[in-house]
């Protein structure tokens, strides 16, 4: 076990280095001169130009620039934003809780509905319920979420007026940042308390619904097929034969064994959460990582794109590695 885990961790190093090289090169592939772009229309002064180029380290050879970039990363320096002049790392962690809160909510929605739906569909295989659910699952799986989010806004915000259109919380409430997760922090806000919590929750529901739809469909489909496989096993028949209640057989005997592939899928879904976050945050003006990256791309804020891509990719790689290790832990057979 330890050997397998160590091997996984060692394998991360070349991948992370590769990602850093990719992030570094991508930015340098952009046509045009970043210094000219920064200086804008009035940047014709040649002295200012050379000075700026030297300050940005762009006058040195490419490989030297890369090693500087890499060295800085090891010291926790991911560069500074051109727009806000703040450290990329600070900017990242300022926005990360918003994305995390949205992601947790979306996944909670997907799991708490997806697993029961999948179980019921598997038990009532080929029933009307099964067909409806799997049909809906396929629709959800095919959903363009940038459209789905807009449709949710049209129905729930515009027509019904149940939820706000965008943002994280009403401007009325000033919430001190403790965890960064507004659902938690809002309880301690001086002028809000429960009202602030309610406001944060009502802002969160629609984005979480939009973002959770594809994971919901994936989890429901996966649970169904995984359950179907397990329900055909001999030990299920044995458990039934010895007279155990059906619910107990399904939940204790079958579900436990069906969960292994489901957990793997959940880990893989993490990467798609970031993808979902980019589109969802753009639709709902959610101040998280996704919106930050798209804005930086539009503003040509190269250090942020470079550092942000590096941060996000590292996060995804590390999560996948953790899932892999958990999987090894749950499946002794896979260790060799």
């Amino acid at each position: 076990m330890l050997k397998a885990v160590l091997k996984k961790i060692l394998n991360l190093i070349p991948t992370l280095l590769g990602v850093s090289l990719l992030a570094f090169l991508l930015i340098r592939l952009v046509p045009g001169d970043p210094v000219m772009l920064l200086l804008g229309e009035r940047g014709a002064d040649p002295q200012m130009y050379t000075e700026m180029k030297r300050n940005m380290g762009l006058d040195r050879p490419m490989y030297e620039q890369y090693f500087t970039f890499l060295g800085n990363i090891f010291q926790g320096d991911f560069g500074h934003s051109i727009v806000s002049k703040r450290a990329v790392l600070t900017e990242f962690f300022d926005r990360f809780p918003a994305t995390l809160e949205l992601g947790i909510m979306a996944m909670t929605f997907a799991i708490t509905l997806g697993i029961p739906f999948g179980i019921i569909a598997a038990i009532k295989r080929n029933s009307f319920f099964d067909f409806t659910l799997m049909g809906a699952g396929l629709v959800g799986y095919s959903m363009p979420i940038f459209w789905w989010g807009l449709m949710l806004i049209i129905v729930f915000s515009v027509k019904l007026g149940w939820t706000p259109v965008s943002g994280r919380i009403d401007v009325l409430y000033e919430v001190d940042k403790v965890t960064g997760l507004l659902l938690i922090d809002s309880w301690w806000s001086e002028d809000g308390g429960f009202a602030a919590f309610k406001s944060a929750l009502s802002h969160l529901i629609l984005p979480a619904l939009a973002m959770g739809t594809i994971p919901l469909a994936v989890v429901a489909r996966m649970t169904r097929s995984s359950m179907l496989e397990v329900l055909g096993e001999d030990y299920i028949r044995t458990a039934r034969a010895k007279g155990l209640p059906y619910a107990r057989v399904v939940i204790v005997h079958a579900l436990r064994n069906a969960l292994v592939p489901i957990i793997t899928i959940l880990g893989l879904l993490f990467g798609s959460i970031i993808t979902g976050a980019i589109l969802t945050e753009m639709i709902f003006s959610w101040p998280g990582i996704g919106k930050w990256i798209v804005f930086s791309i539009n503003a040509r804020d190269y250090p942020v794109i470079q550092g942000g891509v590096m941060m996000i990719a590292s996060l995804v790689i590390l999560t996948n590695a953790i899932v892999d290790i958990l999987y090894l832990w749950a499946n002794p057979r896979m260790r060799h």
Partner: protein
Amino acid sequence: MELEQAKELTPQTPFQEFYQSFALNKGAVIGLAVLLFFIAVGISSPFLAPYDPTQLFDGAYRLPPFFSSGGNTKFLLGTDDVGRDILSRLIHGTALSLGVGIMIVVVSLVLGTIFGLLAGYFGKSVDRTVMRFTDIVMALPSTLLAIVVAAILGPGLVNAVWAVSIVAIPNYIRLVRALVMAEKKRAYVMAAQAYGAGHIRIMVSEILPNCTAPIIVQATLGLSEGILNAAALGFLGLGAQPPTPEWGTMLADARPFLENSPWMVTFPGLCILLVVLALNLVGDGLRDALDPRLKR
């Protein structure tokens, strides 16, 4: 009598077997019908569309579709904020979206197959290099990579095709590599080696034809993903540029009018959903029909 018996005894051709299995899958047949409908619309778009997709109708701004009050049958699905006919734009967008999807599949399929073949066939350091590359690309969330590449190449439809294709390549590499690794141990490959066939010949005309079924399935699913990703780039302003009637771009244009003119948002997205759904249904059907492991 004898003839009937003979008929029963003759084994089905692979195509007959595939056809029977596919035709039994209702979802796949419906998906195929919807897909054929969209393809027909796409091909005949210049004749089918009532108006030019960029023609501006003075005074006909943001008219609702004919079935809601205030709409008329001159513009069946209504008009947008500058008075263009939405139905005509959607019809022209069909050709565009399907074309973009097919281009994405062709580019990523060809490049992915080449690298997958090389990695799977030669193994060792070739394999390690190629797989390291795919690991790195797959570590980046696909939309993130696509928007970064699109931003680097600059907004535009052709650049969006490249961006989405690059993101899709690793899927094909991994699939083809795994298939080739399984196939190359087979006796027929050894036979080909024995009669002196070269590497390229073995790879292309011996191994590759035996890997086509899973590749076709992956290409179908890749088509739906490609269309979806290209539309997402259009929506983010990095794909096709206005006034191109691309569905994702139309959605982005319609967004400011969400509250008062919801039909401008509804129809383009519905088209994307229908095409993607149809492709996924067909893809699932193809997989069930082509994958012998899943056969009943």
